[in-house]
């Protein structure tokens, strides 16, 4: 199975390494050559320096034979466009796109793009974490007030 990871930052590089460790053949794309170091010294997958909007770069990374594409650059709109190019031009059904803005993530999810919104996830997790906190400040205070 071949995966193309576009944007090799903290998220992209870790996804790349994890998929590679599970036996995928992974090629990462990043504008900066220095991003290769994020993949570690023993990286045996591919790495292409270039912009993900450039279809020549996507082809060089082997998108035409790709089974899965992860788009995780630091720009929401860049990710949205690259994701649609991967899905519509190259026909990669398994294209997963990171979108930080929940509103745009929802809109494009409705239009058939597989979007992942870390912001929504953080909101859910943080809210839930507070709800389930055992030491609640206000609760203690109210108990103290109630004491005679």
């Amino acid at each position, binding site marked *: 199975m071949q995966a193309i990871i576009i944007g090799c930052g903290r998220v992209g590089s870790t996804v790349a390494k994890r998929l590679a460790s599970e036996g995928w053949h992974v090629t990462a794309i990043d504008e900066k050559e220095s991003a290769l170091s994020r993949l570690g010294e023993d990286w045996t997958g591919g790495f292409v320096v270039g912009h993900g*909007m450039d*279809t020549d770069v996507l082809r060089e990374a082997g998108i035409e034979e790709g089974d899965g594409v992860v788009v995780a650059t630091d720009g929401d*709109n860049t990710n*949205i*466009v690259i994701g649609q*190019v991967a899905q*519509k*031009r190259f026909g990669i059904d398994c294209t997963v796109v990171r979108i930080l*803005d929940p*509103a745009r993530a929802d809109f494009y999810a409705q239009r058939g793009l597989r979007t992942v919104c870390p912001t929504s996830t953080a909101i859910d997790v943080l809210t839930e974490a507070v709800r389930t906190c055992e030491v609640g400040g206000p609760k203690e205070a109210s108990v103290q007030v109630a004491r005679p």
Partner: protein
Amino acid sequence: MYVLIAGGGKAGANVMRTLLRNGHEATLIEQERDRFERLEAEFEHQAMLGDATEIFVLEKAGIRRPPDLVLALTGDDEDNMVICQLAKEKYGVQKVIARVNDPRNQPHFDLLGISPTVCATSSILGLVEHEVPEHDLVHLLELRKENLEIVEVQIDKNSPSAGKRVEKLALPEGARLISVMRDGQAEIAVGSTELLEGDQVLAILEPGKEDELRRVLLKR
């Protein structure tokens, strides 16, 4: 007419100025504070600070009305594509016009069905091609909606069409000659028009027929 403009650079600000002068209603969205402050001094409440790819910014600017026209004129092609998609597909805006900053991104605009687009670099390149004395096919105008294009061809002395009448040419299906320019004078091309060396011929054709037309007129 109500027009929403995203991007307050030279293009956006000038279009805004002209629209207002012609009595239209318009809102201009600009993301950079410095630039916005200059725009606000001129356009007052009709200028808005914000990222036009953010849904709440678009809604504050009145995209729900919806506008008759949305112009995506920012310096970022990805932003322009997203603005157009949101305008058309989320808010039912009937007409959008997008600026293409990097001509290499044109296929992406086409893929996403964003049309019409305007690309200054492509226009300049077209004009440069027009100036280069190379006897080949020069693209002058693309009519995307009609799926037609207008090209210019210069007939040279080796052209198989030189000395022939238009009606004798085996023009490809989906291609017609429009006019012939000779010694600074243009004439509509009709069946009896004879092509001569040095003629500049305008043709209209379906994209993809260029090679066939080139073969008939120029033999290359």
